[in-house]
């Protein structure tokens, strides 16, 4: 009989209105990499939060190395040798790596001071042992996101964790950093650690994990051996139906240039450029993707094209017309649609009705306003009904539903419907599927392809490289506010784009030479 590091038996946890975990059983062998797969809201994070002592389960029991335990808080979990690397790091930015790691468990000298030198030595040892390559003296705000994640790993290793939980660890990483993380997993395993990996990305599971437990809507669907199951099988278990991985699309028929950016400079805050000397063009009938890690100027770029941020130098042309100084209102009229990155903040008015949100940009058009400024409520409600049907928006009270009460996926459908119905020449789309489930993602992807096929120019910003590769016809990699290289999607290699996202121009050049 194999040894289990963790057994969570028949765990049930209900929140008002929803059962997050419904008699879920998870058994993790000692010294294995065990993945937990599920969509957003499937109950992965709840299950792990129970294991880490953040929540109490309503029923069920937890066994750690065969011993029945009650985990009331994270300190107790730490004592049991359980550590967690959270999706959002919990680091003090102006502290050094070592200071962050020892925080709360500082070694003392005889006089009672913090023994930083001893601590740094210990951190360096740990780092070398697991091949983490972390500089113990570096300030946290000066190191990359990938390095910060390693600091989090060291933090729990320093506390002698034997079981390491990773919550969506690759969400913030570049492709190269993801590869390196996979190597770190191997090293940790070789050193005898047990790893639980929470993710919704099948590729990573295939690469790193041995077994995989799949959750769907709070229920445990099953545990499979990763080597003997295909990605399609696991995806089907996750979603509950068969899934298309690749969005069907015919080759693009690009036409004339719609959007042209010339040597753009956009300021982030005083003194800093978010975007510098950026030139790019998007043609009708194509999807141009901007690949890059969050925070490299994508958000500012899209905001500037939409008119929400001023451009310092350079120009923006829409179908040859200079719109650099145009107001947001006039840009909308000129034919720019915009699916904003922060949909809660910009995309919707949560306390407005669904139909009011659908006409947020077109309320003043003759169809919805008559006699110089009186709204035609009936026409707006009819329009709402039409779009609810056409875009499969699920809303309890029809056009009168408050958008704030709808799910994230349906809110996004409202925004997509509104922007597409403006039938803009140029559609700016930022992070259209973040946090959405597979069904909503499929709908939104096929809508974007359809817009392309109608001859619209689409500019897509996404931090998910897979989404970019799946949808785009051309891909521009952005790093530190500059376009590092532009490649055709059909001969794009993930590795090269990853290198460009890290700012290596050589890869871009190599790509060009290959053409």
């Amino acid at each position, binding site marked *: 009989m194999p040894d289990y590091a963790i057994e969570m038996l028949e765990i049930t946890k209900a929140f008002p209105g929803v059962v*997050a975990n419904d008699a879920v059983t998870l058994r993790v062998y000692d010294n294995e990499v065990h993945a937990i797969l599920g969509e957003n809201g499937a109950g992965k994070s709840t299950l792990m939060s129970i294991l880490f002592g953040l929540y109490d389960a309503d029923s069920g029991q937890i066994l750690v190395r065969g011993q029945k335990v009650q985990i009331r808080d994270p300190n107790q979990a730490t004592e049991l040798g359980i550590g967690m690397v959270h999706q959002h790091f919990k680091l003090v930015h102006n502290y050094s790596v070592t200071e962050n790691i020892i925080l709360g468990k500082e070694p003392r000298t005889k006089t009672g001071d913090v023994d930083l030198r001893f601590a740094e030595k210990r951190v360096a040892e740990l780092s070398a042992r697991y091949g983490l390559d972390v500089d113990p003296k570096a300030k946290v705000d000066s190191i990359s996101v990938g390095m910060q994640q390693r600091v989090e790993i060291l933090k729990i290793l320093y506390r002698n964790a034997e079981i390491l939980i990773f919550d969506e660890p690759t969400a913030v990483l570049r492709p190269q950093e993801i590869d390196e993380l996979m190597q770190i997993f191997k090293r940790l395993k070789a050193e005898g650690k047990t790893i639980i990996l929470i993710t919704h990305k099948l590729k990573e599971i295939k690469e790193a994990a041995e077994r995989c437990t799949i959750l769907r809507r709070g229920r445990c669907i099953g545990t499979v051996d990763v080597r003997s199951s295909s990605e399609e099988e696991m995806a089907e278990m996750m979603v509950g139906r068969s899934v298309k991985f690749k969005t069907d699309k015919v080759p693009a028929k690009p036409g004339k240039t719609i959007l042209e950016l010339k040597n753009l400079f956009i300021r982030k805050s005083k003194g800093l450029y978010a975007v510098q000397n950026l030139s790019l063009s998007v043609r009708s009938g194509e999807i141009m993707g901007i690949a890059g890690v969050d925070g490299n100027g994508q958000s500012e770029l899209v905001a500037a094209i939409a008119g929400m941020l001023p451009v310092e130098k350079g120009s923006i042309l829409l179908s040859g017309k200079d719109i650099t100084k145009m107001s947001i*209102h006039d840009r909308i009229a000129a034919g720019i649609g915009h699916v904003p990155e922060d949909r809660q903040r910009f995309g919707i008015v949560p306390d407005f009705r669904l139909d009011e949100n659908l006409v947020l940009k077109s309320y003043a058009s003759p169809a919805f306003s008559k006699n110089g400024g*009186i709204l035609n409520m009936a026409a707006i409600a009819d329009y709402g009904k039409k779009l609810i049907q056409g875009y499969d928006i699920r809303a309890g009270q029809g056009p009168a539903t408050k958008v704030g009460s709808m799910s994230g*996926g349906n809110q996004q459908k409202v925004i997509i419907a509104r922007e597409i119905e403006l039938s803009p020449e140029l559609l700016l789309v930022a992070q259209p599927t973040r946090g*959405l489930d597979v069904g909503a993602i499929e709908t939104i992807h096929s809508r974007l392809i359809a817009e392309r096929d109608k001859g619209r120019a689409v500019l897509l910003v996404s931090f998910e490289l897979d989404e970019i590769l799946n949808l785009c016809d051309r891909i521009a990699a952005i790093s530190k506010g500059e376009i590092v290289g532009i490649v055709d999607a059909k001969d794009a290699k993930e590795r090269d784009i990853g290198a460009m996202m890290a700012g290596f121009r050589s890869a871009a050049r190599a790509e060009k030479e290959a053409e």
Partner: protein
Amino acid sequence: MKRSSLNKSLLDRLLSSDKAVSISVVLLGFLCGTLLVVAVGRNASGMYSAMLQTLTGLDVTRGTWNIRYVGEWLNASLPLILCGLSMAFAARTGLFNIGAEGQYVVGLTAAQFVALYGPQIPGLHWMLALLAAAVAGGIWGGVVGWLKAKFSVSEVVATIMLNYVAFFASRWLTMLIPGSNTYRTPSFPATARLSNPLINQLTNGSRLNLGLFVVILSCLVFWFVIEKTKLGFELRATGLNKDAAQYAGINVTKGITSSMIIAGAFAGLAGAVVALGSFSYGRVLGGNDNYGFNGIAVALVGNNTAGGTMIAGLLFGMLASAQPLMQSRQIPKEVTWIISGLVVIFISLRAAFRIILDKRAKRRAAELKERIDE
């Protein structure tokens, strides 16, 4: 376990219905007021009979009926409703117009000037005075809106400061009028007054006047502009989510300025209705009339809607005009202030409850991240 979650959802539901909250808060205020009256050893029925007399003119203690009380009640409510509309209109655009008092004073002063110096044409004179008051109040509010929109000057600070400017400027300017002393100007010509013989007759000599129609019209205008027009759509969007309004191409600067102009105009009208309706001469203000500040409470209880504000204004007007009747029944008149104060406190507690509930809901949402689309 089950019961507690049921209670929670009941509380949730109660707190999520604005109307239900307002009604229960008012009832709670009356309950506390009643308990207080009983606690100091007085007969609470006297309080209610005084209120009944205010509302219907019926004096149950003596078995007489005089409709004049109803007229006085309505007259006391007029400026409260208008100042409530002022506050509510700004609030719908996400602004806190604490300056209704100043806009009221400016409107009152402008109306008094036009009353004394305007053309004495029957029917036109008082209309011009009302118009001047609305314009003056609109400018007084609009300046603040413009400062807010253009330079992000806090409208709360700006309006409070302008309240003082309005007050002292009004005193100084009014005293410049020949024949004025430190408390009054010469009398208004009859053409400037809002009093109307027919209304006067119908209400048995109360001070109720044409201002009644100004208020009814104002409520209708408020409702129509906010709910039915393009401008209202823009203002509501700006009030509920300024970022999204901006993103949608709505001119937020223009919206904030127009909202403060309209809010100021309502308060200015309140000034005119008091000046021309309840007085036959111009006043050199010795202190604040406080209608502007009370308007904040009126709008709060009225949930910033036209109908709600009207009802809340009538309620607060009833409490004010019931005071003398209460005193004659040995009920301390301060009870009415306690009741209105409690109503405001309770309704503010709703805001606190909301914050707690929102936080809880957000935490829950964060815990569950995004649920399956359904």
